[in-house]
């Protein structure tokens, strides 16, 4: 009954008025960034991280987590009403969600997206509640070799789920690993790639790099395109509740999306985007009328929207049990936990049970808030979407500037963001993805330490990675993932 006690304790923490307030602010801002195209949850959380320095660790993480899953709710609104994804994980929702809006069924689409999100979000938090403490106990026995092998597996998973080519994804991971070595070496104390620059001696800051890669570069890419006239479907003020017929069609897709999303969310590199696409593909295949997909099939909204919310919950598992982030957002949360003096990983549940259980239970509350909040606010979001991008982008740039500067009150961090903004812009132009770079940059220092400690343990023998069964298993899986795409390509006629 350890879990029961934990949940009870968690609710005591999460229901404290100050934490409730932070939870509310988090999900509200999350919905906002979800609605606004061109500002994703990763950049938003990075931006708000410095503002949580004064808060307690629990309140800070509750709010930042709320932004993440809140964005999953908000993204669907823009997809349905404007046919532009408000957020990357809502791309597929455009297909059938917007088609439904064109048929005058925007209300049903928005409604099922909100309810589906709520159901999936709650189910995945329940799964998280039971799975996380169990996994934390298992991973407690991991030593440096197991960690190194697991992180290698994580990087390989990243390439497996990548949209761009395997080689380019691996390259981005390598660049990220190198970026992670900038600064002072923890073991020898030597400076690496610092060139005598103060900002670099402290290492590349995660916040400025993320703001650059996901904030600034996104604005630059958007600026290049000519502004299109947005056609916004007037949001219905009534009839947001799906009919009984809608529910019959959506229940199974929501449940399937929840399971699929949760497990894809756990895997590094997969996450909400892949989960939503996978759910759409599954629903289309399972449907008796696949031809309706793209023409306003409610299953095509319900499944993916459930999946991306469930993935948001699943993504917390590796963070809370291993201290390894599954995506860019989790990487910032990892940074946030460490800034607040906590070490994410298997010991978190013992060392800071208030944080561990507080975060998990706050997600039950946050999801409920989102359901209540989301539908009544839709008219407000619709009005916000009428603000032209030419007016919006100077403010997005400004927020990025404030965010990058205020982490350490350093113009140097701003310059790092500026450089990575240009880098991110060029990466997109040359068909590279930024996410593997970020993940590898965060994992890099942990991986290096685990590798060097393992080699010290084994007196220089790589056998340690093969002789320990768990480490060997992870590495074998990593090799299979690396080889699989090559084999698959061979067997398919070009």
């Amino acid at each position, binding site marked *: 009954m350890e879990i029961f006690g934990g949940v009870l304790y968690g609710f005591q923490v999460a229901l404290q008025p100050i934490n409730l307030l932070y939870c509310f602010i988090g999900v509200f801002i999350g919905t906002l960034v979800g609605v606004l195209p061109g500002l994703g949850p990763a950049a938003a959380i990075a931006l708000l991280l410095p503002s949580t320095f004064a808060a307690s660790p629990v309140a800070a993480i509750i709010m930042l987590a709320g932004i993440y899953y809140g964005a999953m709710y908000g993204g669907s609104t823009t997809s349905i009403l404007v046919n532009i994804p408000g957020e990357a994980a809502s791309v597929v929702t455009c297909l059938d969600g917007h088609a439904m809006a064109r048929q005058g069924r925007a209300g049903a689409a928005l409604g099922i997206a909100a309810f589906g999100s709520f159901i999936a979000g709650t189910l995945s938090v329940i799964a998280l509640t039971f799975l996380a403490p169990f996994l934390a106990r298992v991973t407690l026995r991991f030593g440096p070799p197991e960690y190194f092998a697991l992180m290698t597996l994580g990087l390989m998973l990243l390439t497996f789920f990548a949209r761009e080519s395997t080689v380019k994804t691996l390259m981005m991971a390598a*660049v990220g690993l*190198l970026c992670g070595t900038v600064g002072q070496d923890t073991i020898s104390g030597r400076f690496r790639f610092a060139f005598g620059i103060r900002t670099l001696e402290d290492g590349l800051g995660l916040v400025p790099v993320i703001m650059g890669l996901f904030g600034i570069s996104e604005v630059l890419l958007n600026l290049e395109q000519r502004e299109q006239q947005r056609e916004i479907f007037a949001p219905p003020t009534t009839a947001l509740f799906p009919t009984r017929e809608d529910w019959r069609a959506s229940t199974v897709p929501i449940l399937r999306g929840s399971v699929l999303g949760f497990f894809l969310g756990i895997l590094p590199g997969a996450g909400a985007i892949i989960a939503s696409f996978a759910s759409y593909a599954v629903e289309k295949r399972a449907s008796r009328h696949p031809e309706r997909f793209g023409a306003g099939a409610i299953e095509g909204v319900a499944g993916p929207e459930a999946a991306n919310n469930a993935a948001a919950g699943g993504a917390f598992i590796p963070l809370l049990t291993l201290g390894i982030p599954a995506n860019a957002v989790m990487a910032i949360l990892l940074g946030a936990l460490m800034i607040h003096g906590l070490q994410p990983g298997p010991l978190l549940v013992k060392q800071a049970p208030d944080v561990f259980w507080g975060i998990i239970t706050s997600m039950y509350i946050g999801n409920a808030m989102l359901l209540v909040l989301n539908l009544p606010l839709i008219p407000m979001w619709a009005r916000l979407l009428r603000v032209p991008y030419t007016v919006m982008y100077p403010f997005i740039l400004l927020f990025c500037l404030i965010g990058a500067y205020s982490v350490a009150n350093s113009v140097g961090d701003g310059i790092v963001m500026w450089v990575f903004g240009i880098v991110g812009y060029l990466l997109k132009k040359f068909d590279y993805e930024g996410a593997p770079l970020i993940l590898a940059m965060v994992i890099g220092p942990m991986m290096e330490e685990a590798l060097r400690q393992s080699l010290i343990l084994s007196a220089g023998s790589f056998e340690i990675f093969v002789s320990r069964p768990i480490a060997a298993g992870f590495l074998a899986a990593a090799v299979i993932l690396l080889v699989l795409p090559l084999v698959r390509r061979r067997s398919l006629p070009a």
Partner: protein
Amino acid sequence: MSRDRVSGLFWLAVALFAAAQGLALKLGSLHRPGPGFFPFWGGVVLGLLSIVLVVRSPAGNAPGGARLRPDNARPVVAVGAVLGYLLLLEVLGFVAVTFLFLLLLLRLERRSWTFSAASAGAGAVGCYVLFQLWLKTQLPTGPLGF
């Protein structure tokens, strides 16, 4: 040259640089890997991958794909404005530089003087109140004390 070849050669150069730096930092032994161990091998892996990319890429200019040259100068202006903001931030102070930054970008988007000035003023003061007064972020002050 195809775009993959251009980017591949770029990363190859980065990889060589990283590996060279790694060597200079001392690799150490396998018993006790030194500070250069990880950068060196990271550089080697990146270098090998870049070579694979360059070799596999077609020699000619591949058709399709996004255009490299932007359709307009707006990204360049934005990049310049952000840099200018950072360079002037600690000279002029947060409120002044934010006002100028917003005013410039909004004017360049052909918004009227009144609209631009009003939005820039509201944005600068609003952010000051939100971040400095409410969230207690330490923003740089200018010669006038804000």
